């Protein structure tokens, strides 16, 4: 293991050099002509926690979509774990998806399946054995604190519990990366904070976490790396930062 000073940030050291995600001059223009991202250069190292912030329409979701190959860059290259994501043939995208867990603002649970079945679903469809399922589902139920709710259906859960279920489903297949697209957007502040703490715990277990958010209070409380987007691309990329640039000078 080698220590390295993070560029432009005296006092902050990274102990692991593996680059998990890298954007090289990435632009994304949607077929309808909307410019979603412009000239993005970004490196996220293994085990980092990164907030993606910025006003609506500056491409936070698009940036995440490029990582799990829901979108392909119009220009530039996105590398995930050293692999050029845009060059993956359609039939091989599933391999990338197994490296990237994703949670959304709207949870996207299957309404006719219990919490247990929702989490087990990710294992079942990726070909896990019955034994693996019996072993791993309880483990992740416990991680997200839903062991007692495992037989409930999503409609019987609170928003926070639904998001916990979604997080467990995203992680149960052991992806090294977790992407959270405004995961607290539908939750009240207390619940949001609980989800935030859960994500932090997941990051401490070793996952690389990228989270887009509007919640300035939460970002300010966490003091982690913040990548701020505006219409011209990345406006700011700082370690241990605040939601707004001016907050730093406070």
């Amino acid at each position: 293991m080698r220590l390295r000073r993070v560029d432009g940030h005296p006092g902050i050291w990274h102990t692991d050099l593996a680059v998990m995600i890298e954007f090289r001059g990435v632009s994304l223009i949607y077929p309808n002509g909307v410019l979603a991202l412009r000239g993005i250069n970004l490196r996220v190292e293994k085990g980092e926690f990164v907030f993606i912030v910025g006003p609506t329409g500056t491409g936070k979701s698009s940036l995440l979509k490029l990582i799990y190959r829901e979108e392909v860059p119009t220009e530039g290259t996105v590398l995930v774990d050293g692999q050029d994501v845009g060059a993956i043939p359609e039939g091989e995208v599933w391999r990338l998806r197994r490296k990237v867990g994703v949670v959304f603002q709207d949870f996207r649970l299957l309404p006719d399946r219990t919490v247990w079945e929702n989490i087990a679903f990710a294992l079942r469809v990726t070909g896990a054995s019955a034994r693996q399922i019996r072993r791993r589902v309880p483990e992740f139920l416990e991680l997200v604190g839903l062991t007692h709710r495992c037989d409930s259906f999503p409609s019987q859960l609170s928003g926070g519990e639904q998001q916990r279920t979604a997080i467990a489903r995203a992680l149960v297949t052991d992806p090294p990366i977790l992407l959270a697209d405004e995961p607290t957007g539908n939750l009240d502040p207390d619940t949001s904070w609980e989800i935030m703490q859960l994500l932090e715990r997941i990051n401490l277990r070793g996952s690389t976490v990228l989270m887009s958010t509007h919640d300035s209070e939460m970002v300010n409380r966490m003091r982690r790396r913040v990548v701020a987007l505006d219409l011209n691309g990345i406006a700011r990329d700082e370690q241990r930062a605040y939601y707004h640039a001016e907050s730093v000078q406070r």
Partner: protein
Amino acid sequence: MLNPSSVEFLVLEALANIRRNRLMALAAVLTAGVSLAISAGFALTAIAVHRACEKLPQEFDMAVYVRRGTPPDRVSKLKETLAAMPGVASVTFISKERGWQEFKRSLGQDISMDDLLYNPALDSFKIRMSDPRRGRHLQNRIRNLPEVDDILWRQNEVRFFTGLARVVGIAGAVATVVLFLGSAFIIGNTIRLGIYARRREVSIMRLVGARPSFIRFPFLLEGMLLAGAGAVLALLLIRLAGAYLEALTGDLQSITRFLDSGVAPWQLAALLMAAGLGLGALSSYLSIRRYLKESSLEAAAQ
């Protein structure tokens, strides 16, 4: 690649799909059954008519009349020559006496020809052709033999039935294919509706990295089950129609003798089942592939 619990999961998913879309599944089985039955029924009829058209002219014999006054040894020599010609299945000698008797019998009792002073008939050969469609060819070869006086055969009828056989064959093949494609379209549509009903599941599968073949499998299985059930239904319908036709024609040998497709019941069952399963697999494969290509994760989650 697949472990037992995956197989169980996939099969259960396919069955759950069918149960969830019971009405659509029923509609698909019925339409697949009826269209397969129509397409197979049409094919069988076409085959039977085609065969009849080919079989009928087999019985149109060629009559070769021997020039009057040909000595008997030359006549028997001629028989050998004719029998050796390609396209000749068998040769029967009909003496002028017998020919005359037959002719008189065919006229009936109304006209008496007993007072004719001599027998106007000629010795003749009845030739059974191995392929009446090549009768003209045979006729040309026989005509050049010095002992031959005249040749009679039903070349117009042969031409008619040969042409009819060809038309029925082509039309039957085209109609069968069109009807088959129609069934494929209907089953494909049912599968599409099934996919649409399960778009959330499909989108989660894609999100967490299920292989495309894994995503397709339950739908393929569903399509094959539906179309397979349709094939069974089609078989029943065809057997019913066949039984009805049999009751209708009864002992009418003149009809049943010709209207036989020559397709054994087990062959029909195997063909229909193969067609049904192929149809189900193909149409659902195309549907799900198209869906996976066109839709995004986002759209599917809504």
